């Protein structure tokens, strides 16, 4: 479990970036941290692996106070994937890139090789095994960065804006991959302002605004609440806006993606116009 107790944070001689944040993320949960630029989202996730230590309050990861552990120690269980893969890629080959962390953590060489091979296959990167990471496309580099963190199998996976610069197919693949990680029992935390992506994933949503948590609950509740959405510089998912518009059909308040909308409308439309034979 990752928990923050009354955590406040400010960089030296600057105003507070986080203010009395209390958050608990249980093992195996899927959480999206959202909020406007500058709300403190990235600052918060850097606390989870000890890169930043709170100026007030404590952060506990799996029962351990982060003040008492080094970043390397905490990273063993908390994998943090940064937004821009170019800030971490440096090796001569993709395989070396993946081996880097394993060697840092002291894995034996035969295990390193095995894990690297498995990870390459899992993320469809086998053919790039001996390529330089720098010649790959943007989307591929993002996958290599992801692989380089997951290769040591951290219990908690944190992704900072994983969908920026990705097209729809890539996002779809990412979503399925997250589902896989959850099914493996991992905790997944993403920082994102991609409302439609979050609406399709339906995680728990924690909304940060100016360093404070202003909302915390299921995506279906949070993303359909106009006041908090407005405050965090987000927009409601298009489907929610559609449902709000179709008040007369009395849609349930938790429809935020196309699939649930279809289920609901299928019933309503059939009732209104009579059953239609499905086109084949």
């Amino acid at each position, binding site marked *: 479990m990752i928990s923050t107790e009354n955590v406040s944070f400010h960089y030296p001689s600057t105003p507070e970036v986080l203010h009395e944040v209390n958050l608990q993320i249980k093992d195996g949960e899927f959480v999206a941290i959202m909020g406007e630029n500058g709300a403190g989202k990235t600052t918060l996730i850097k606390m989870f692996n000890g*890169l930043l230590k709170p100026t007030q309050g404590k952060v506990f990861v799996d029962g351990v106070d982060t003040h008492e552990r080094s970043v390397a120690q905490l990273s063993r269980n908390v994998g*943090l994937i*940064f937004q821009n893969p*170019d800030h*971490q890629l*440096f090796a001569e080959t993709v395989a070396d890139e993946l081996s880097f962390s394993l060697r*840092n953590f002291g894995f034996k060489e035969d295990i390193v090789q095995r894990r690297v091979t498995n990870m390459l296959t899992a993320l469809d990167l086998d053919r790039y095994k001996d390529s330089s990471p720098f010649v790959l496309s943007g989307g591929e580099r993002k996958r290599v960065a992801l692989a380089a963190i997951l290769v040591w199998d951290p219990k908690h996976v944190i992704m900072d804006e994983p969908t920026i610069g990705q097209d729809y197919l890539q996002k779809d693949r990412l979503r399925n991959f997250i589902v896989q990680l959850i099914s493996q029992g991992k905790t997944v935390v993403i920082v994102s302002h991609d409302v439609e992506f979050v609406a399709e994933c339906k995680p728990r949503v924690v909304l940060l605004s100016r360093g404070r948590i202003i909302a915390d609950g299921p995506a279906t509740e949070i993303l359909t609440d106009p006041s908090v959405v407005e405050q965090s510089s987000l927009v409601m998912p298009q489907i929610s806006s559609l449902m709000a518009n179709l008040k007369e059909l009395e849609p349930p308040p938790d429809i935020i993606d196309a699939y649930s909308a279809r289920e609901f409308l299928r019933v309503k439309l059939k009732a209104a116009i009579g059953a239609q034979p499905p086109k084949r």
Partner: protein
Amino acid sequence: MSLRFVEGFKFTKMDSPIHRLDPRAKFILTMGFFAISLMFTNIYVLLVLFIVQIPGVLLAKSVARWLRSMRGGLFLGVFILIMNLIFGTPLVSSLAFTIRFFAIMSSFSFFFMTTSADDLGLALDQIHVPYSISFTFTTAVRLVPTMAVDAQTVVDAQRSRGLELDKGNFVKRIRNYVPILIPLIISAIRRSVELAEALESRAFGATEKRTAIVTLRMRFADYLVILATIAGLALAFYVYFYVRLPTLVLPFQMPRLF
């Protein structure tokens, strides 16, 4: 060595009489301080040179930052002191050299803290430095904080992969910087390419005769500063050639180390 040292040279936008001075005037002032500092080895003169800058720092409302940069320079200052002592320079002279270092560092720090890169660029333009050079300079200065953020992000990202920069023997520590330097260099290159594309798209280099919508104009205060500097230099020359300065004699002898 703390990065606070660099902070003392960073420009911060503020409304103070010093910030409003023309960068050319300020530069002449800084050069004046630099020249006078080099002329003298007398500890009293150098102390005066150092202290005389403090009212300026106060006027510029930059005391806290100036103090931080002095603190950052402490390492080098102490290093200079010790090296001088080791090689046999008398204690008083060693102290004088250290004070001279701080006087010079302070005057340059003061200049950069109160002058924006843009104004520097304008100043260079108006003294007819080729535009490509002044632009390169301004952009480089402007990019320092951006690159610093990049550097911190790279360090964070690699530490998050188990890289421990403070462990291991000397060789290992040097090698540990490879995963930091390479992404930094690549990021810098990518950024440069993006900047270059944007520059091209804004017709950079289209004509030799660039217009400037903002121009620097010297005002009364600026001429005053320049006059004060000339007066200060004149005084310094006079003192150097004609005045016998009191020397500081300590009641004990420093043991010679070599």
